């Protein structure tokens, strides 16, 4: 049979978002792939140049619809640095709380989508059901389930509601039990092991060469986690292990993500204990007016430039659920950031698609791309 190109996307059950994977196949074998992005490009970096610093946060939630908090945190760290602001410690812990719950929610979403790609139907519902509990928690202190707008430059929007920590601990207990079930449904299944072992292998050296980060890199045995390597927020005061696997295949990525969720539970218990013991302010006590919403506007355009506010640049790198995200914020003294540049981990992970897809079957594309955990919102921005 001669070779032919097929378009998997932009509307295709495999894609989980709007993108197109062009595949050159020979029979059932993949000969070449060419990912095409841009169907979800909203120009977030450009719009950010036209918004107040706090207003950009609404865009960050929409960068990645399953990991909004991670992106909020990413942007907040960079812009606080660019604006020379320092958040209170309790706000830092609250951000870690958001981050780790978000990691669990994101990985649960990944789990649901990944098993669905394999044709495993009921775990999809289990994953979504348990993710909903985490979203309920988010809703209880942010008021929204996916687009939180919770973090602010210089702190967070509000403190936790009373009784939150106890409920959160209950949710953690529930989740810990569910993780066992997930493993039984996947690792305990011979078909799953046959499908996923030695599939989509990407060795650590190739990962580094092609910029692949996150669970994909850790599944290849490379111990690299920004929470350990370049601790941000208060990660250096918390105990956790870096999840690792050595098989560099789909099963390895599954194991890494499952272990990361367990480590997140461990982190969250420490954070909840800390939050119980240390009440305090959650927003810096002195903030410039011109951060924008919800603080009042400055009035006329260009008025600030007369007043000589300090310039600065901010750079942040955050271990997002998908990998290493980076933000670069240039503050030229205006009300709006001069330039905002984001690095999406999925962007790099997809760009290496040729390395881990070629040579496998067409039927392997959904599990492999599922194990990459594609979130098109943050790739296209």
């Amino acid at each position, binding site marked *: 049979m001669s070779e*032919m190109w*097929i378009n*998997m996307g932009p509307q*295709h*059950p*495999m894609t989980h978002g709007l993108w197109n994977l062009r595949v050159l196949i020979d029979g*059932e074998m993949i000969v070449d792939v060419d990912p095409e992005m841009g169907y979800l490009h909203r120009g977030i970096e450009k719009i950010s140049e036209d918004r107040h610093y706090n207003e950009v946060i609404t865009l960050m939630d929409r960068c990645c619809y399953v990991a909004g908090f991670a992106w909020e945190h990413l942007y907040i760290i960079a812009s606080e640095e660019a604006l020379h602001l320092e958040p209170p410690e309790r706000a830092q812990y609250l951000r870690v709380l958001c981050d780790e719950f978000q990691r669990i929610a994101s990985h649960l979403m990944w789990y649901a989508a990944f*098993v*669905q*790609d*394999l*044709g*495993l*139907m*009921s775990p*999809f*519902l*289990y994953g979504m*059901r348990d993710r909903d509990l985490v979203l309920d928690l988010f809703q209880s202190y942010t008021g929204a389930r996916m687009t939180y707008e919770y973090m602010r430059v210089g702190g967070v929007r509000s403190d936790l509601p009373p009784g939150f920590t106890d409920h959160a601990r209950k949710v953690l207990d529930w989740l810990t039990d569910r993780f066992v079930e997930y493993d039984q*449904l996947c690792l305990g*299944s011979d*078909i*799953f092991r*046959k*499908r996923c072992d030695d599939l989509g292998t990407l060795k650590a050296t190739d990962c580094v060469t092609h910029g692949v980060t996150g669970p994909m890199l850790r599944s290849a045995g490379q111990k690299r986690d920004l929470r350990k390597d370049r601790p941000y927020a208060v990660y250096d005061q918390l105990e956790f292990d870096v999840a690792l696997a050595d098989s560099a295949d789909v099963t390895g990525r599954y194991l890494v993500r499952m272990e990361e969720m367990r480590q997140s539970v461990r982190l969250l218990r420490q954070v909840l204990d800390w939050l119980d013991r240390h009440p305090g302010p959650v927003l810096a006590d002195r903030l410039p007016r011109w951060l924008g919403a919800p603080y009042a506007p400055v009035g006329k355009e260009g008025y600030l430039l007369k007043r000589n506010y300090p310039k600065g640049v901010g750079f942040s790198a955050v271990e997002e659920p998908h990998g290493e995200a980076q933000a670069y914020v240039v503050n030229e003294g205006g009300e709006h950031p001069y330039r905002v540049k984001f690095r999406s981990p999925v962007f790099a992970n997809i760009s290496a698609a040729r390395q881990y897809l070629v040579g496998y*079957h*067409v*039927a*392997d*594309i*959904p599990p492999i791309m599922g194990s990459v955990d594609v979130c098109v919102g943050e790739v296209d921005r």
Partner: protein
Amino acid sequence: MSTITLYSVSYDLASVLLGALGSILPGGARAAITSADVVTGLSVLIFGVILLAASMLNTILLIWWERKLLGRFMDRRGAMHVGYAGLLQNFADGFKLFRKDTVRPREADPLGFLTGPTAYMVTSMVIFGILPISTGWNSGALPLSLLLALAIFSFAPLFIFVSAWSSNNKYSLMGGMRSAAQMIAYEVPLLLAVVAVVIVSGSFSLTTIVTEQQNYWYWGPLVLALIVFVAAMLAEMERIPFDLPEAEAELVEGWNTEYGGMLFAFFMLADYLRALVGSILVVLLFLGGWTMPSWVPSAATSFPLAGIVWFMIKTYLVFGVFVWIRASLPRVRTDQLLRVGWNRMIPLSLLAVFLAAALVIVKCLPVFGCLPSVGG
């Protein structure tokens, strides 16, 4: 006929109808119309209509059953708003599909595109004329009814491939290829597993096979053949874990990607018709058909149409197992599927055949009649 069966009901109905018609006709015509041949012919026709309606009704009920079961497996409720417990949901869905336009791609081959699903549907329905559901089912008493049923059952890959090829879509084509490869690969172990049953029962007639199971059901002695049969039947029915031809993750909808409206409904219905046939065959060949163990109180087995009722209960339970498998297993890959089919299933089914032959030769089959759980 002493017991009331579906056929006797339709025979009585036919004779009553023809008698009423004959009473208003002149003598010569009356004699002609009430002759035994005409009554039999009409009764077969009525029987066929009832059968058609019953099989379609059962298929729709089967979809409902799957939706409800799958819902509970997934920690949700399934269809629940249309009719009691969502019983009428599938009628609503069917009505929606019925009202839809049939969209045919411009580049598709019209002949194959239209005849493929139709023939697939028709061949799936014809099997119901052969399968005996209860005693007194004359069509099932044909000496080679089992072979005939399986022969019609294995028409499907041809029509699937025709419709996939004429859709002129790459996904359809791949799905059609996979479907053909898979069905041909699993036809062999399926038939070999049936051979084991035939060896033990000594007949190709489905009715005889069931009556032979009066003393003990065949799943006891032929457990290996049962496993092979169920696995091969899953592949033939294209259900998870063997639903590669319509693996929606990579092939959109596989061979029926381009179909919509009523033609898609044909495919859906035919799929579930085949699932029903598969469940019925499992019940007929391994689970004693309409017979019940002797420890079941006679009141439960002697009411009118009791055979049909028990038969359907068994069928739905067997299908429930298929749903259970669907809810808990991922799908396999094409090469793995074919490797399992040719390298594992065929030796296993051959082994099952030899075991069955050995059991017959050493005459230890009646031992299974002692097991109360097996039958009796």
